[in-house]
């Protein structure tokens, strides 16, 4: 099995089925065409450790933290544009099924002002069958690119956590 250099976890073994092709890269990172999805260890229920990572294969220093979109907003409704469905190799004319056809992730940002936010306007959509991914920018204005995930990290840290 091949291994990759990661930003947060050192060198990790990497199976072929965790690699996703991004033919267009991501906006601002157009040259990054391959990402490895780093998920919680096997057996751990996803809701117990929902954080996942998209690690660039070519650049160890580039790794996005993300959450499954339904963790951020349980009622999230997909709105993938027809062109993006086509690029992903999905049926145009209907939205794909979450979980069976596609995995959809919201990229996270930590910001002094807003705390942790998730980009619900432009989720990462992974076609689980073709292992192809892209960032599907919504054409509507239904969801915000800085959706608050939690209160400011600074405030959270000052509180005692019994766990």
């Amino acid at each position, binding site marked *: 099995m091949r291994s990759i250099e990661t930003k947060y976890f050192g060198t990790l073994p990497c199976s072929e089925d965790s690699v996703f092709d991004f033919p267009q890269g991501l906006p*601002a990172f157009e040259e990054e065409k391959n990402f490895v999805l780093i998920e919680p260890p096997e057996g751990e229920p996803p809701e117990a450790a929902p954080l996942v990572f998209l690690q660039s294969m070519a650049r160890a220093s580039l790794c996005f933290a993300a959450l499954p979109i339904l963790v951020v907003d349980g009622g999230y409704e997909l709105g993938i544009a027809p062109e993006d469905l086509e690029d992903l190799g999905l049926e145009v004319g209907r939205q794909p099924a979450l979980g069976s056809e596609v995995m959809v992730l919201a990229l*996270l*940002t930590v910001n002094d002002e807003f705390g942790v936010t998730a980009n619900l306007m432009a989720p990462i959509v992974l076609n689980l069958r073709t292992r192809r991914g892209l960032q599907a920018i919504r054409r509507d204005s239904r969801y915000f690119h800085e959706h608050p995930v939690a209160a400011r*990290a600074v405030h959270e*840290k000052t509180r005692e956590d019994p766990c």
Partner: protein
Amino acid sequence: MLVLRRRAGESFLIGDEIEVEVLALTQHGAKIGIRAPKETIVLRKELKITQYQNSQAASTPSIKDLEQVIKKLRP
């Protein structure tokens, strides 16, 4: 914000060198044509926002900070 009412086939100018024409209107949206100097960057606003947001996400400082907060999501 300046608001103009334009029909398909009509256009308007921004400065001396940029022309924006409404090519067609359908129930799915407006088809817009833009004539501008080559060096003018024309970008969908969502794309610009996404580029910025991705740059911010890529420079997210410490995963420990992030985990602290994510813990709060756990039941």
